[in-house]
């Protein structure tokens, strides 16, 4: 398939895209009008300008081109979850098993052509049993659909260039009089390999289907997915939910059959105008129950309610399961404590998923511990939806506050003796009188030698006259590291 730039209907001037090639600015792509005037790819831009001074020339942007082509590839995932971009301007769609949804190969091809024409793309496309044969037919062929097993005959008369060979290889074949693919069919294999390297036989095999050619999809293809093509486009969140329900049901059936559950679900909404909206939700444990999946998406859909743009509506929905894990079928019996606990755990997992999907995974967390004395590093949060890594580090045994300030705040403190606890301190412009104190607990920075190494801290637990309890520390060893120690408030006790 060849993509060309959209033509601007209003402007009369021909449009070309140029790039720097072979030490000159050369035309890389042309629109229909420029084609009529006889411009061609590879022509020097200066020559073209001389012929048509009104020529509108734009510089090629390889990155932008690749990006927009990738977007197109994602939009074409409506035909199949396996869409592979080999090079900008060329893509493969693996429609194996997808014909049913559209009503056959002819229907897919005509739908594709119509869609691309509507979006002002020009293209060539062909359908064959192998990616190699389809490429050959799209580029050089006269038939668009090679039937089952018919690729050998269909590409026999095509030039050897149709095998996707490096140019110097096809040049050498031509010089030896081997001009069509068919001529290669009955050649002895060994001399061919000897003269033209393995690449030739490999490409030939890929075209004929005797050698496998794995396609790398733009988005990893799900093993389990369910989809619906709608007769009438839909736009409202409610309508999406009503279509999603049967999809979740279908997907569940597939997952049950495969004794599997998924930790990630992806809903692709294909818009009439080729845009694709993708919504993803995560589950903390492998899930498949339709009700659970529906609830997860329900929250996400409610969130986008206000700012989602359905354009002219969505015409196709696909629900895919990713990160698939084994999940057995459980039989629940009444009055069974084991299953009761399992049911509770399941409910808790669902709660974690709902919270994480609505509020963001990084805002719903559990705590883990590190083997360090540095208080701010000893405990850390991880999202509950990430699998728990078994850790045998238990929390610090010594008294620790229930809340910690993200950054210790400097306070003004007055101590009776330089290395004793404070008797008064001022924090956030409020004065506190200390009634009781425990300490010091000396915590030395263990990253000695690194730049982050800080001075030693002497921590005190103090109680004010009202009974409020704080965790304070003096930074630096008095007389050793500093003569004028600074005080900080780091946490709160109950």
């Amino acid at each position: 398939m060849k993509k060309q730039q959209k033509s601007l209907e209003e402007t009369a001037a021909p449009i070309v895209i140029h790039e720097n090639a072979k030490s000159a600015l050369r035309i890389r792509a042309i629109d229909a009008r420029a084609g009529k005037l006889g411009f061609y790819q590879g022509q020097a831009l200066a020559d073209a300008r001389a012929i048509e001074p009104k020529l509108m020339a734009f510089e090629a942007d390889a990155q932008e081109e690749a990006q927009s082509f990738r977007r197109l590839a994602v939009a074409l995932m409506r035909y199949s979850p396996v869409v592979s971009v080999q090079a900008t301007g060329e893509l493969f769609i693996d429609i194996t098993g997808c014909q049913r949804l559209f009503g056959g190969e002819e229907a897919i091809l005509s739908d594709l052509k119509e869609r691309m024409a509507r979006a002002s793309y020009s293209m060539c496309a062909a359908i064959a049993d192998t990616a190699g044969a389809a490429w050959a037919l799209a580029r050089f062929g006269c038939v668009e659909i090679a039937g089952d097993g018919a690729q050998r005959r269909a590409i026999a008369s095509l030039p050897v260039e149709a095998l996707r060979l490096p140019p110097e290889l096809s040049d050498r074949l031509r010089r030896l009089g081997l001009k069509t693919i068919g001529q290669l069919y009955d050649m002895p294999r060994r001399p061919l390999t000897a003269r033209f390297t393995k690449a030739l036989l490999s490409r030939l095999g890929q075209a004929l289907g005797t050698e496998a050619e794995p396609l790398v999809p733009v988005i990893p293809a799900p093993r389990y997915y369910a989809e619906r093509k709608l007769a009438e486009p839909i736009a409202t969140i409610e309508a999406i939910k009503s279509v999603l329900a049967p999809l979740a049901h279908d997907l569940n059936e597939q997952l049950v059959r495969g004794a599997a559950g998924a930790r990630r679900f992806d809903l692709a909404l294909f818009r009439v105008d080729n845009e694709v909206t993708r919504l993803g939700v995560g589950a903390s444990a492998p899930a498949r129950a339709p009700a659970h999946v529906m609830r997860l998406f329900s929250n996400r859909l409610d969130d986008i309610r206000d700012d989602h743009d359905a354009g002219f509506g969505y015409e196709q929905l696909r629900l895919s399961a990713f990160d698939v894990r084994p999940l057995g079928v459980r039989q629940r019996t009444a009055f069974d404590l084991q299953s009761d606990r399992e049911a509770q755990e399941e409910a808790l997992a669902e709660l974690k998923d709902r919270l994480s999907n609505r509020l963001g995974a990084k805002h719903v967390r559990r705590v883990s511990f590190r083997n360090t004395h540095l208080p701010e590093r000893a405990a850390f949060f991880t999202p509950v939806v990430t699998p728990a890594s078994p850790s045998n580090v238990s929390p610090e045994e010594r008294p620790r506050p229930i809340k910690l300030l993200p950054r210790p705040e400097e306070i003004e403190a007055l101590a009776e003796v330089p290395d004793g606890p404070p008797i008064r301190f001022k924090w956030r412009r409020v004065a506190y009188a200390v009634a009781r104190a425990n300490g010091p607990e000396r915590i030395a920075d263990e990253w000695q030698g690194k730049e982050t190494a800080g001075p030693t801290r002497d921590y005190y637990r103090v109680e004010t006259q009202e009974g409020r309890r704080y965790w304070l520390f003096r930074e630096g060893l008095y007389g050793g590291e500093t003569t004028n120690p600074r005080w900080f408030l780091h946490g709160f006790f109950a």
Partner: protein
Amino acid sequence: MHAIARRNELARLRRRIADIEKREFAGIPEADDIACGPVSLARGAVHEFRAGDYRDAPSVLGLALALAGAASAKRAQPIIWIGQARDAFQEGVPYGCGLNFFGVHAELCIFVHARDAKAVLWAAEEAARHDAIVLIEFWKPHPLLDLTATRRLQLCAEQSGARLFLLRDARDEGPSTARTRWRLGPAPSAEDSLDERGLGRPRWSAALEKSRDGGHGWWVLEWDHAERRLVEAAPHSRGVVPAMADRSFEETTEVA
């Protein structure tokens, strides 16, 4: 007009039936019964803890943790701790290393940092549908936390059996339909037997301002770390044991 009157009457009767049903089961001790002083804090209910001073927030939070820890000791249940993300720099973040002191298993906790008051209430409602202990830090008054919001939380809790601790500021005049309402703050600790200048067991001054089951009073409570339970601090306490007074429904059901 008639329709509205009839609906109100129906609602009143439903509440009355619900209250009668609850009372009938009140005599059966629950496996994870937790008590704040002599007052039992029922499952399936919202308990409102108000801090008398903004600086008392950690103390009030500590009491809620102590109660959660005491309940967890009897029956392991998840603890869902909901707060606002932007309060972190002002009020600090939950510190996992300090939870063990109150018998709270850190691995049973889910920490939710919601974006704003709306998200806090949404998360609280989701959590309340689960049989769990839910701590909701809601220190700053917000119009969203109104009668309807607290009633919704209460309804969710009733169905799931969750205990919700709604932590607010005493200046927050917002209404609520909580099962019990407390005004809490720290109390100076008694001296430690080993270190006369050191900190004793944490103490709270706890005033039960309102209870749907009747009764009110004032106690000084103390956390017994070794036994993992909340006890009345004998020397200071002058609490009034609340009778399970059968008050008229009109007084207890409707809170303006």
